[in-house]
């Protein structure tokens, strides 16, 4: 029997009975962690992400050569013991460039998501909480932004302004928030009808306080899943922009531009210049997706897919 959310909530309240609320909260947290840990794929994703961030943080120690060191006579050498992922057209060590590029790509993805979440959550919260013309105005604006294919919007914006890491992050951040805004709006609209919100209002809490203290924590599960999913999208978008030559600019390496720089050597047989950066993007996006999926299932067992 499928319970509607309201019914399920009621049932849980009944089950809880006289157990102190704090204990319930703690128990629920552990249940979430346990559900996540049971999902093997999600755990693998989380593990890989930790490794990737560690590699990015310790990049200066891990890279075996300076990422921009040009060695003459080492043009397009295949992978070997000295150069694990070969060398590029300028005799630079591809492994070191990918480690450094990972630092840039992961940081760019993270910064973009910070912007997406800040804009998306604040606008979505306002729309959901206040309703009325604030809501319809903001929602029509998201309708407009969502009607243009995201990548087309990004390419237009990125190419018109000075290309580079900063432009890339800002452009991705400012174009990608509508989806999150809508989801947060939906959550807030649903939550603001709850009794505890009415109670808070009755004792005179300000809208800002209600949103921050009562609504936000309850929408947190949805927000964290959104953030995870957008981390993978943002990395893919940054790579796509850099691949088109509109994102991070050489000499600063990012996975996308290392790949773009290397692809012209494909015909000459230098596959490693294309293969490894693409593999890095693939593994990162895959891990984020696996983790995001696991998080969604763990945080919201009602929506469990399997």
């Amino acid at each position, binding site marked *: 029997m499928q319970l509607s959310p309201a019914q399920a909530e009621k049932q849980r309240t009944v089950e809880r009975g006289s157990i102190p609320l704090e204990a319930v909260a703690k128990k629920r947290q552990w249940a979430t962690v346990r559900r996540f840990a049971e999902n093997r794929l999600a755990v693998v994703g989380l593990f890989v992400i930790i490794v990737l961030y560690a590699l990015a943080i310790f990049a200066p120690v891990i890279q075996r050569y300076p990422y921009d060191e040009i060695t003459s006579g080492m043009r397009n050498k295949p992978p070997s013991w000295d150069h694990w992922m070969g060398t590029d057209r300028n005799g630079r060590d591809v492994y070191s460039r990918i480690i450094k590029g990972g630092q840039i790509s992961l940081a760019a993805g993270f910064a973009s998501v910070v912007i997406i979440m800040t804009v998306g959550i604040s606008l979505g919260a306002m729309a959901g909480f206040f309703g009325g013309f604030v809501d319809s105005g903001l929602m029509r604006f998201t309708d407009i*932004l969502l009607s243009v*294919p*995201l990548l*087309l919007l990004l390419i237009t914006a990125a190419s*018109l302004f000075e290309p580079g890491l900063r432009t890339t992050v800002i452009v991705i951040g400012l174009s990608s928030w509508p989806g999150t805004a809508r989801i947060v709006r939906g959550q807030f609209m649903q939550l603001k009808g709850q009794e505890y919100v009415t109670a808070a209002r009755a004792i005179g809490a300000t809208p800002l306080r209600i949103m921050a203290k009562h609504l936000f924590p309850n929408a947190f599960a949805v927000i964290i899943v959104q953030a995870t999913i957008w981390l993978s999208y943002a990395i893919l978008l940054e790579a796509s922009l850099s691949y088109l030559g509109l994102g991070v600019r050489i000499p600063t390496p990012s996975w996308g531009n290392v790949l773009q720089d290397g692809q012209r050597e494909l015909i000459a047989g230098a596959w490693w210049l294309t293969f490894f950066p693409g593999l890095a993007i693939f593994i990162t996006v895959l891990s984020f997706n696996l983790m995001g999926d696991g998080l969604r299932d763990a945080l919201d067992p009602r929506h469990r897919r399997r």
Partner: protein
Amino acid sequence: MDSGIWAYIARRFLFLIPLLLGLSIVMFTLIHAAPGDPVTAMMGERAASNPEFVEQRQKQLGLDKPVPVQYLYWIGNILQGDFGKAYTFNRTPVLELIGQRFWSTVQLQFIALLIGLMIAVPVGIVSATRQYSKLDNVVTVSSFVGLALPNFWLALLLQIWIGVKLGWLPVISTGQASADFPERVKYFILPVIVLSLPHIAYFARFMRSSMLEVINQDYVTVARAKGLGPNKVLYGHALRNALIPMVTVIGLQLPQILGGAVIIEQIFAWPGLGDLAFKAIGQRDYPVILAVTLLAGAGVMIINVLVDVVYVMIDPRVKLTGAQ
């Protein structure tokens, strides 16, 4: 199917007018807020030494007027069906340029979508009916893989491996248009593989969960209990209902197609809208950029309305509210 639905459709379409005007303002503002101008972009280095020529050319293109005035001229012409001439591309009328490339993109994307669905739907069904089997696990893992593969990476690897190393298929699409039917198929294979893979992954995953949800409904249990064979239950009762949410999901995927087309059409030198958009953006060809984004936006909005309409028609549980 009464007059209510027509009122609903009319209302939805009327509602698109302010949205499209909004979109035109957003895009126009974005483009004109950027530093630099098309004339300098076209002339490159030579612009600095010919300030008079630059000024004259800007006047010719109407770029010397204030931005709001330029907008009014432009939108006024569009409302009369005139999208203007491109700044570059030999000053071809914008609509003619788009017309030349429209079918090329639609053909490719439609085939990819169709093949994607034709593979994804059966895979999703089988995966759902054998939940947790080895096959189901393989499908789940592969759909994660399919969604995470960067399309440009896959395209390049396929080009070099199948196109160059094995020499089986053409790498780029030059000559595609003049080729005859059996020969022409070859040009489609690689781009279609790259474009349909994420569709397969996405739709199969969705089909699986949609099917699982339906299988556990009471009416399916009832159908089974009254002695219907497993196939009749599955295809007579469950499948039809599991397919309904697919309509929405397909509708949600369509907008992103033109974005993906930009990259794939670059790699395969496919003469479509994505390629046109990319070139126009690089040359700051304002009329072309604006027309492509505006038409893409209009297309997406119309598809959204159609999806909702189809949904009302196929799902009797959905009722129109406020249509009267």
